[in-house]
């Protein structure tokens, strides 16, 4: 066997090992952050009644919605294993159930379920980009709407 062949095989072996190690080690847990936000057309206008911890999200939401006030009602963090359920109580007898099921490349597959009075009203399956977030909104709440911002990070 030539020297070239030996080097190639050695490199391939190292590469295969590192890739398989990466697949195993790439996030055995998922840090999931759920922010419950109340959005309304408040009297204070933009910024005055908006929570400072929501700065990044608000900019994006304001590019789509007309709401001027964004108030953080709850911020819950979970360190979830795959297929482990996280639960967040929402206003108006609603509950959010969130389960990270697996990963696909740089994305985390989440199963999200919203219940109202123990009855499922909304279910979705999303592929969330690692270190990124999505927002689910719509349910009416106190002259405004309820927004749920979910972010996920592979640990």
């Amino acid at each position, binding site marked *: 066997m*030539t020297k*070239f*062949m030996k*080097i*190639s095989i050695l*490199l*391939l072996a190292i*590469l*295969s090992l590192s*890739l398989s190690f*990466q*697949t195993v080690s790439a996030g055995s847990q998922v840090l999931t952050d759920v922010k419950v936000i109340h959005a309304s057309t408040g009297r204070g206008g933009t910024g005055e009644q908006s929570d400072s911890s929501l700065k990044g*999200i608000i*900019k*994006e*939401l304001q*590019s*789509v919605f007309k709401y001027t006030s964004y108030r953080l009602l709850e911020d819950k963090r979970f360190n979830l294993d795959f297929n482990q359920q996280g639960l967040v109580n929402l206003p108006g007898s609603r509950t959010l159930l969130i389960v990270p099921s697996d990963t*696909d*490349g*740089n*994305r985390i*597959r989440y199963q999200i379920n919203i219940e109202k009075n123990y009855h499922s*009203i*909304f*279910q*979705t*399956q*999303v*592929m*969330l*980009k*690692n270190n*990124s*977030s*999505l*927002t*689910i*909104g*719509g*349910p*009416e709440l106190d002259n405004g709407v309820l927004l749920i911002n979910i972010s996920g990070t592979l640990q």
Partner: protein
Amino acid sequence: MKKKCNRYTSEDISRFIDRELPLEQYRSFKHHLPHCRDCSDLLNRYQSVSFAFSHYTDRMTQGIRDADIEQKLEKEFLAFEKKSLKDFSGLFGKNIYLKLASITAIIMICLFPFNLGLLKDPSAGPSAIVNSVDTEYTSVMIIETQKQKHTIIWFLEET
């Protein structure tokens, strides 16, 4: 070979045949030859040996045909050419750049089925890809913001 004449040595005679004697000595020996039987005999012997040798070498060289030489040279040239080609194509010979390029190509090919995600731009695409939505309400919107491509799922709760 012994000779009685002491005026010229056998070496002088040999040099005379090869025309290596100084001109004066050459002339002197030439003048001496008709008067000396010993030197003359030795000269004849040397000349006959020299003639026999040159005749033999001429015959030998005449025996080699030009076509044979040409064929032999052609054969050797082809063998050399074949060896050079083998050095180049046989696992890329000694060309280090070709070796590196081929190793890179092998790695790239192997990466493809293993993990395509490594080659993709991680910042590309929306923040979330919505695979499915199941709700008892009819109004569901999926919005993507322009700047950060933040995904928003919007549903209207009917009362």
